[in-house]
């Protein structure tokens, strides 16, 4: 159980390198050390030698960020400098039946465009010329907003 005593700070005086002793050495100045305003030896040891400008230097190291390294259906990643990675999420396009983003992009390239969009921000594609098998409403296999409105109206008409 010596390891436990050492861990919680009850270790012997001769083992200053345990976790408990390490925390004792930090003492109440831990926050100051963390913020870089203390004068504890821990401060000097924990500060990156590259200083506060590390991120800026890393960014400026590359004047032209490298092109996408990995591109897929779930987005792409790139790098700025040597150490900073950037994740680019895929653009969201609301299409019928919510196909995978890669499929959406392929459809856009193939020229489907608005004809393939049954429900988009502009509205719901309800043009009679886009429909087939039209009949008075009895049932549906898709329970979307428009279906709920349609059944509400159907009940209104039946009640009156």
């Amino acid at each position, binding site marked *: 159980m010596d390891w436990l005593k050492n861990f919680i700070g009850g270790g012997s005086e001769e083992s200053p390198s345990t976790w408990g002793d390490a925390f004792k050495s930090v003492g109440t100045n831990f926050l100051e050390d963390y913020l870089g305003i203390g004068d504890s030896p821990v401060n000097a040891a924990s500060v990156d030698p590259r200083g506060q400008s590390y991120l800026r230097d890393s960014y400026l190291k590359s004047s032209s960020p490298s092109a996408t390294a990995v591109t897929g259906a779930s987005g792409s990643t790139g790098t700025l400098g040597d150490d900073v990675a950037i994740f680019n999420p895929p653009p969201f396009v609301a299409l019928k039946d919510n196909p995978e983003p890669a499929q959406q992009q392929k459809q856009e390239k193939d020229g489907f465009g608005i004809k393939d969009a049954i429900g988009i921000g502009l509205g719901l594609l309800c043009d009679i010329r886009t429909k087939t098998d039209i009949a008075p409403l009895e049932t549906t296999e898709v329970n*979307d907003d428009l279906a709920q*409105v349609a059944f509400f109206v159907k009940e209104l008409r039946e009640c009156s």
Partner: protein
Amino acid sequence: MSALEKLKQLEPIQFRYKAELDPTQPLRAGFSAQQVQQVIPEAVHEVNGVLMIDINVLKNYLRLAREELLEGSSKS
């Protein structure tokens, strides 16, 4: 004409989108945009020559119709 009366004039339909638009072709419920345009023209917009229904306008009519129904039931 009240929202309730306008909604009653709509003709709900079931339909499938044409195969070139929707290969799976599930049976859907909705309206004909051309018919809705005759009753509630502000609910229909033309985009690239195709008529589209603004579901938010219809939902607003639904809300108004519900209020009219509630008012009617409270009076009676």
